[in-house]
Each structure stands twice: as C-alpha cells, then as structure tokens.
C-alpha cells in the first residue's frame, strides 16, 4: 500500500515481533493474509474510510510499524466498524436469519455429563428471569476485561465475567498476565479516556510538582519547582521516549516517588507553551475531546494524564479453529488469546476480532453437524437451578460489604500491582489480597433486593467472576520471571526464551478454589525469534 513495498508478510512480521514472539505463528499469518480482504469487506459494508484523491482507501501509520498500512474513518474508526457490523446484523434480523437477545447476561455454559457444551444459561437484565438456551455449539465474543482494573479505556460492559465463568467451568485461560497499558489516557472520575500520543509529538512536556501534595494551580508553579522527569532521565529523547519507557517512568514517579498530582495517579502533560495556532491546526480534534470530558482548555491549562489499562492480550485458550478445550465452546475477539502474543499492535485488534469470527463461525457449524444429541436433558434444569440459587443467595446475603466499593478496591489493587511494573513480592501480596476480597465477597450486602432491572445483583455476580480471574492474572504474572512485551519485571529485565517462550495456561481447580498452571510451547515455525528492540 502507498507504494512502500508493504506486504502481508511484513504485517505478519510486525505482528509477531510486536507481540514479542509469544503468539503461535500460523494463525497470525492466516489473519494477516486475510486482512486486506477484511478491509475490503468493511469498505463494502459502507464504512466511510478516508479516501485518496483517486477515490481509493487512504492509509496511515500506527505504532509498531514503519508502513502506512491502516485504513481509517476520520477520528472514529472503531465506532464506524462497530456500527457497520451492527447494521448488517440488523439486516439479517429483518430477514429472520438472526434472533438477537439484547439485555441478557451470559451466566454459564450448560455442560452435559461428559463435560461437553449443550447450551448456555443467561439472565434477562430486566425481568431477572434465568433461563437456558439449548445449542449444539456456542461462540463466546465477550470482549476485554478492563473492569478488573476498575477504570480503563474499555467500555463498562467489558468485565470478563463470561470468560471467568467459563474458566471456572473448565476452559483454559491463556496468557492472562499480558495486559496492554496505553501511556497517555485522560484519568476521569468514571473512566480513562484515550488521549492520542501525538500530543507529546507536538512538543508536550511531562512534569509533576517537585513537592508531594502541592495543590497550587499548575500555572502558578514556577519552573524551578517542576520536575520534568522524562527530560531529566532521558536527555536524548526527552518527552519523546517510546511508549513503554514513558509509561514506566510515569508509574515510577507516581507510585515510588509519590508525586502524583494531588496525591492521585496523574501527571501533567503540558502544551500551554506551544503556539495556539499550531495547536489548533495540528491537535484540534484531540484537544476538543479533552475539553469536552474534562472541562479545561489544554491550550490554557496543562492536561492531566496517566497510563491506562487498554487491551487484554490474554484470554480464553483456543486452538487454530477457535475452539476451546471444552467441546462445543468456541471463542473469538478480544476475549480469546490467539493473535497478539505479549503485546498488541495498534489497529490489529479489530482485524483479529473479525478474522477470529470468520474461523469460529464455520468451525462451530462443522462441530454442530458432527455432534449427536445428549443422552439426557437433565443438565439444563440443574444449571438453571444452580444459577437461580446463586442469585437468591446474593439477594439474601446480610453482610456489610458494598459490591461497588469492593470493586473500587479491586481496581486500585490491580492497577497498582498488575499493570506496568511488576514485582514478585507485590504480586504475591496482590494474590493474598484477592483471597481476602473473595472472603469479603461472602459478606456482600445488596441494598437492592427487587426483582426488576436490579443492576446490583448482576454487578455482584460479575464482581465475583472478576475476582476469580484476577488471581489468574496476578499468579500468572508472578510465575513469568522475565520481561516480554507488556509484561515487565525490573528484577528480570530480559526476555528469557529458554524458560518462557511458552503460553501460560490457567485452569481452575474447583477443590482448591484457585488456578493451576501449565505451559505450552509456542509455534514459532515461520519466523525465528529475534530480540525486540525499537
């Protein structure tokens, strides 16, 4: 594209290299081979991709590649793709080919006596009715797990609850410890919103007040009392150090030097010294987002930013046909682990979601055709009753723990210890805390006990699943004594292919109520691993 000699092989190489060689290579190659066709498909569906003067798709560059490879639709590509796919589903609905159950929450799979999937159990979020849906095969597409980190760039529905429930029912969860953090997000009271990195590119300076707890208006803090830590630590690159370096430095200043603004995890990203005209010309879109959601004009006031949990590389373990280890359960999208290894490249996620769906759909149909009816149907009633009992228990519980407060604590704990910088001591402490949280969960108290659109019950259920999955992340991170992709341990700063060129697979041990781990070799048959240095 753009006559730069780019190729699907180059895309494949960038993806594998960016993922620090932890992804099995054959499915990644297949995805990259299919990617141009996927862009064409989205274009045919009417996604308003930007055009060249000749009327062709325009492409631009994203992090982790040297090529202008990424099609884009203004500043809202993700939204456009989502809506285009949604429109097609609506079309199928109107043709009677699809039945959509919106406002239902997946609770669990229905497994038969041989632990094969026979359907799902779900709850109507309005009537609170719990019911089962028989199915020969199911495909899980429940997205990332941002909510485990309290606030993230993800949507609030991305709780990982479904993945966790299935893990607790016997599905493997792979590479849980790989969590991508975006260096510059806008910390909000409700969520973290993505802030493009171009703000640093246009001369933004990152600093904190030198004294902890300085509550002065940033503009009134004299130069001599500001700490431009990136410029001091990395005189050569200054504020333009690569993503991961910037992220770690900000973390260090906040958590080790305790110098976050107002004692909170935030630092200043200052553009106020840059000429307004330049800002308006080059960064207007971004500055408007900041203004809209924060209320301050970054042309006048330094922005507050902080690295934010952004993407879940790990997920449900699947084979090259997107099948989990439980017969009849397939998975596609951010909820599974297949395509991004230890780190995801910009713009690669949506492609992997769609490609995973292309594989999972036909594979599920093929599986369904080959499967015979279960011997009995008793497991449907059993599963429904089991889930109804869970709800009843939560409704009755007379403890003193508010689920939303417990969630806030979980988010703070996980963000602090399981994102950017990882120490084994902290990870072990985190797991201990998680066990404590699970204890506290037993004493939950729902202030809402009504049987209609009760969001507290639903949330409490999600919270329980988040807690279980958090242990997979913390313990997985503790085990991996190396640094690879998004996983960084100062005590083990190098990648260790000899011991850890392996997929982490967690499975739930019901008796011990905790994860157990095994490791699986990675298929590196196409591109031999080489050191990752940008």
């Amino acid at each position, binding site marked *: 594209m753009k006559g730069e000699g780019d190729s699907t092989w180059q895309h494949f190489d960038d993806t594998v290299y960016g993922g620090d060689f932890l992804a099995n290579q054959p499915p990644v190659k297949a995805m990259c081979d*299919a990617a141009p*066709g996927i862009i*064409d*498909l989205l*274009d*045919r*569906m*009417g*996604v*308003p*991709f*930007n*055009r*060249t*003067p*000749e*009327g*062709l*798709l325009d492409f631009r560059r994203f992090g982790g590649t040297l090529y202008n490879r990424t099609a884009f*639709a*203004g500043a*809202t590509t*993700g*939204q456009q793709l989502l*809506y*285009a796919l949604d*429109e*097609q589903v*609506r*079309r199928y*609905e*109107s043709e009677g080919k699809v039945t959509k159950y919106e406002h239902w929450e997946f609770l669990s799979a229905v497994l038969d006596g041989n632990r094969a999937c026979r359907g799902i159990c779900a709850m109507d979020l*309005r009537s609170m009715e719990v019911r089962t849906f028989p199915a020969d095969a199911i495909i899980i597409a429940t997205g990332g797990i941002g909510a485990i980190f309290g606030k993230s760039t993800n*949507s*609030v*529905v991305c709780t990982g609850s479904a993945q966790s429930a299935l893990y607790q029912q016997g599905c493997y969860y792979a590479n849980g410890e790989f969590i991508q953090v975006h260096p510059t997000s806008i*910390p*909000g*009271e*409700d*969520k973290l*919103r993505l802030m493009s990195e171009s703000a640093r590119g246009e001369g933004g300076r990152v600093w904190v007040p030198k004294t902890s707890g300085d509550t002065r208006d940033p503009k009134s803090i004299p130069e001599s009392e500001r700490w431009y830590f990136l410029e001091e630590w990395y005189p050569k690159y200054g504020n333009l150090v690569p993503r991961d370096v910037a992220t770690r430095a900000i973390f260090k200043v906040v958590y080790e030097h305790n110098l976050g603004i107002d004692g909170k995890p935030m630092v200043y990203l200052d553009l106020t010294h840059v000429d307004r005209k330049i800002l308006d010309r080059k960064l207007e879109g971004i500055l408007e*987002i900041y203004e*809209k*959601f*924060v*209320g301050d004009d970054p042309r006048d006031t330094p922005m507050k930013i902080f690295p934010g949990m952004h993407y879940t590389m790990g997920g449900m373990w699947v084979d090259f046909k997107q099948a989990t280890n439980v017969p009849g359960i397939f998975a596609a999208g951010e909820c599974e682990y297949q395509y991004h290894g230890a780190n995801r490249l910009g713009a690669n996620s949506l492609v992997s979601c769609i490609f995973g769906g*292309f594989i999972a759909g036909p594979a599920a149909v093929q599986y369904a055709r080959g499967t015979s009816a279960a011997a009995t149907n008793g497991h449907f009633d059993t599963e429904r009753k089991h889930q109804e009992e869970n709800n009843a228990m939560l409704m009755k519980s007379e403890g003193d723990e*508010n689920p*939303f*407060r417990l969630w*806030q604590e979980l988010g703070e704990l996980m963000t602090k210890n399981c994102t950017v910088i990882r120490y084994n001591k902290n990870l072990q402490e985190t797991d201990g805390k998680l066990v404590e949280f699970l204890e506290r969960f037993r004493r939950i108290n729902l*202030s*809402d006990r*009504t049987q*209609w*659109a*009760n*969001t*507290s019950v639903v949330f409490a259920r999600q919270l329980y699943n988040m807690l279980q999955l958090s242990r997979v992340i913390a313990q997985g991170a503790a085990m991996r004594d190396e640094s690879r992709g998004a996983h960084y341990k100062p005590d083990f700063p190098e990648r260790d292919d000899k011991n850890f060129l392996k997929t982490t697979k967690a499975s739930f041990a019901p008796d011990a109520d905790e994860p157990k781990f095994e490791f699986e070799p990675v298929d590196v048959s196409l591109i031999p691993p080489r050191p990752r240095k940008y």
Partner: protein
Amino acid sequence: MADSKSVLFKIRRQGSPHTSPHWEEFSLAWHPGMNVISSLMEIARNPVTRDGKPTTPITYDANCLEEVCGSCAMLINGTARMACSALIDKLEQPVRLEPLSKFPIVRDLAVDRSVLFENLKRAKAWVPIDGTYDLGSGPRMTMEEQEAAYPLSRCISCCCCMEVCPQFNEDTGFVGAATISQVRLFNTHPTGSALKRERLAALMGDGGIQECGYAQNCVEICPKDIPLTRSISEVGGAVMKQAIGDLFRK
C-alpha cells in the same frame, strides 16, 4: 461553583414501568472532574439519600462513557443529553436527572430505545452486500463523497433528536430525524443506493417524513452535530419526487 463543598442531585426514580415515579435527593462531596455518570457510580457505592435514608443504587444505561454507544441519554436539568459528557461543574444545582420522556421506561433513568432500531430496520439502513466472503475492493468514492458521508455516519443512536422533536409521539408515529438522516447516508452510498426506492417508500405516509414540522429542535440537540435538517429537506425532496413519479406510473 468550583469551591462549593457539595453537589446536590434530584433524581426521578421509578421502580418499574408499573409503579409511579418519585424523587430522591442526594448530596455528594464535590471533587474535581465529576460528571453525571461518576456521580451515579458514587451513589451506588453509598446508596443513602440526602436525609440519610438508605436506598437502592440508581438504574441507568451506560457503556462506552465517551459518547460513542448512545446508551446514556437522559434528561439533565430538563435537557436531553449524554450523561457521560455532562460535567457537574458546568451544571446548575440541584442537578435534576430524569429519564427520556418519550420512550418506555425500564427503571429509574433507563429507558427502552428499541423504537429507533426498529425504524432503522424498516428503512433498511444498511448496505446490501452480497455476502461477507472476499469480493475484492468496494466502490470508489471521491474525497468529497467521503467527506459528505462522514458526518452522517457519526450518529450514535442516542435518540435525543427524537426526544426533543414536537412531532415525535404516539399520535403521529413519526420515525424521527435520526432514521431520516440514515436514509440519506445509505441512499448516497454507491452500493447502498440500490435500496433507495424502498427506503424512500418506507418514509412515505403516516409517521413518515411528512410529519416533520421543521421545528429544528433535533439539529440543535444532536450531540454529534449531524446536519439533520439538511438531511430532512434532502430526503423530503426525494420522497416527494418519488411519490409524484409513483402517481404518474399508476
């Protein structure tokens, strides 16, 4: 307002579609950066009214928290808007929260917006592609065409334009501005235009585009600045032309 110590909320609550509504007041300690959603989250962490009575967390819809999904529309101080971008510091107090008034209520601030999605189905608001298999590249479009389509494609299905429209009610059954604008979007797409006649036909008759009184409330409220009145007049013209054509063909 930035230095006041607490923020006062008046929230209209309704347990279910079949119970009657009542108001509850909440007082939260002010802190920087609060918005309506973060305040609702805070109430969930400590569901106690202003006068110390324990209550339930408030039911509301929200998902993306960045004006993409359209789910958090509600009446904030009487204005239909997205809760996720409603900053407390920019609102008068007490902050009054109510559900959209023209959509069936689910509970508290959550309403059922499915009428819009049904309207989009009726108007065939999609590009009728042959299939999802690889059929090569899509149709060429000029930069101008893309630039014209892009603003229309930013609709987030929030239903604010319908809430504020004087014509949008049960009597008229009016489809509302969002659907009309989507018809314009798909009718101008090279492949989408194959269904042009059907889309325009769906906008004829009772509840169709003729119900619009050009009050322009829609275009003023739209959080995505979609040129709705422009869409309405363009699509209105096309509907008229087609209706007259149909008349002569009969």
